C-alpha cells in the first residue's frame, strides 16, 4: 500500500469544522442564523442577507446529481493512473447547495442526471476523511 498521494484539503479557519465533521462521518454545512439559508462552500458572510452570524448544521446527506464527468485521462498521470476511470459530480444537496464529490459504487455508464445519491465517507488518511456519494437503491 503506497502512501496517499492525492491532493488533500488544507484546513483553514472557515473550513476546519467541515473537515472535522467529515472525520466524524458527519456532513456539515454553514447555515445563516439570520435568514436560515444554507451555504457551501463555507464563507463568513451570507450572500443573501449579509449576516456574519452562522451555525454549522448537519446536512441530511442526500441529494441528486446535477452534473458529472468521467475522468479517463489521469492528470497528474502518476497520481491518478490507477484511479481512472473515476466519476466527479456536482451533487445538489437537498438543503439547496451544490457540493463537488465523487460517485462511488456506480459504473460510469450507470450515472444519470438527477439520480438520487447519499453520502458516505472515505477515511483516506489518519487526519482526513473525504465525503463521497453513492446511488440510493430502489
Amino acid at each position: 500500500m503506497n502512501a496517499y498521494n492525492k491532493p488533500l484539503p488544507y484546513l483553514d479557519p472557515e473550513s476546519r469544522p467541515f473537515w472535522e465533521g467529515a472525520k466524524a462521518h458527519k456532513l456539515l454545512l454553514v447555515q445563516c442564523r439570520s435568514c436560515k439559508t444554507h451555504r457551501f462552500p463555507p464563507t463568513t458572510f451570507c450572500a443573501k442577507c449579509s449576516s456574519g452570524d452562522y451555525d454549522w448544521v448537519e446536512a441530511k446527506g442526500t441529494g441528486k446529481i446535477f452534473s458529472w464527468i468521467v475522468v479517463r485521462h489521469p492528470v497528474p498521470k502518476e497520481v491518478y493512473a490507477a484511479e481512472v476511470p473515476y466519476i466527479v459530480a456536482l451533487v445538489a444537496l437537498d438543503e439547496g447547495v451544490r457540493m463537488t464529490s465523487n460517485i462511488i459504487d456506480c459504473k460510469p455508464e450507470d450515472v444519470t442526471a438527477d439520480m438520487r445519491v447519499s453520502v458516505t465517507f472515505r477515511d483516506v488518511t489518519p487526519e482526513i476523511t473525504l465525503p463521497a456519494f453513492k446511488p440510493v437503491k430502489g
Partner: protein
Amino acid sequence: MAWALKDKYAIAGIGWTDFSKNSGRTVRSLASEACLKAVADAGLKVSDIDGFVSFNFNDSVPAMAVATEIGVPQAMYAVDFLSGGNAANLITLTATAAIEAGLAKNVLCYRAMNGRSGFRLGGGRDMAAHGITQWTAPFGWITYPQAMAMWCRRHMIEYGTTAEQLGEIAVQFRKNAGLNERAMQRAPITMDDYMNSRMIVEPFRMLDICLETDGACAVLITSKDRAKDMKQKPVYITGGAYGGGPNQGEDWFDAVRWPDHSHNYAKYIAKDLWESSGLTPKDIDVAQIYDCFTYSILMQLEGLGFCKEGEGGSFIEGGRIALDGELPLNTAGGLLSEGYIHGLNHVIEATQQLRGQAGARQIKDAEVCLTTAGAMTCGSAMILRN
C-alpha cells in the same frame, strides 16, 4: 451601464511571434517581440509608446519588464491583470479607458506565455488544496478540461446537445487553420477522427480541447484621429463589454454556485455589448469566439443572441459557421487549431480580417467582426469594424 467609447479608439498595430510547443525563449522575450512587431506594424517608434496593459496567470512578466527591454522612455500607464482568458478583450477596453482619461496615448496590449514548455494551464493546478481548491482537487477535479466538461454535461442534459455537434466545430476550425500559416495544427480532420479521438474526460475528447502554445500576441490601441495617420487601415472598436453573472466564484475554476452551467458570462454581457455598439447579431459578418473547448462556442452563440438558448448545437450544423457560411467563426482556426495565446490571437485575426489581410481565409467584404474572451463565469467581448 455600457462602455461608451464607440468608434473613438482603434487597433492600429498587431504583432505576434511564432506559435510553437517549445519556444526555447523567455516569456519576456516573446512579449517584447510581439510588442515590437505591433509598433512597427503601426509605423510607430518605441518612443511613441507610453502605456501597457497585459494579463497573466502568474506565468508571464509584468508590463514594466517589456517596457524596459524594448526601451520605452516613459511608461506612464502600465497595468497587469491577474486573469484567465476572460481578460483578452478586457485589456483592450481598459486601454481605451486609459487613453480617454488622459493617462496614455498609445497603449500596447499583450499576452505572452510558454503555455506548452513552461506553465501548462490545462495540465492541472497546484496539488496543495488551499482555499477554494480544497473543495474540488481532493476529489480529483483539477484541470480546466475537467472543469468545462462538467459544464458541457449540463448542456447535454438540458438540451440534448451531441458529440457530433461539438465535432462539427472542431472539424471546421481545423479546416480554417489549414489556410493559416500561423496555425499549429493544419492537417485536416474528419468527423471520424473527432469521434475516435481519445476520451480525456467525458464528455470531452482530445479534439474538444484547445492547444497549448508558446508564443505572444500584441495589439496597439490608439485614438481614432491618431490611427488615421498611422501606417495601417484603422480597425475601430465599436462595441465592448466585460462582466459576468451572480456567483462568479472565488477563482477561475470555481463555479459551484454558478446558476446554470448551460450558460456562461456571455448571457450577462450581451445587453451591454450590443447597446454599446448600436448593433445586433445580424450585423456581424465574422466572429472570433473564445474556444478553449468546443462547447464554449455554444454558450457564447446562445448568450449573445445568435440563436435561442439551447439551440447552439443545431445552429452550428450544416455549414453555417464555415468560411462561406452565414456566420464564419474562428477563421484562423481558433484556440482549438491555431494556437492558445489565451484569446488574444482572436483579436489579431479579427484585425487581419477587417484590414483585408487574411489571405486565403479572407471573408469577402468583412466589415464587422465580433471577438470574445472567456468561457466560464466572466468574460469580455468587442465588436470591431473597419
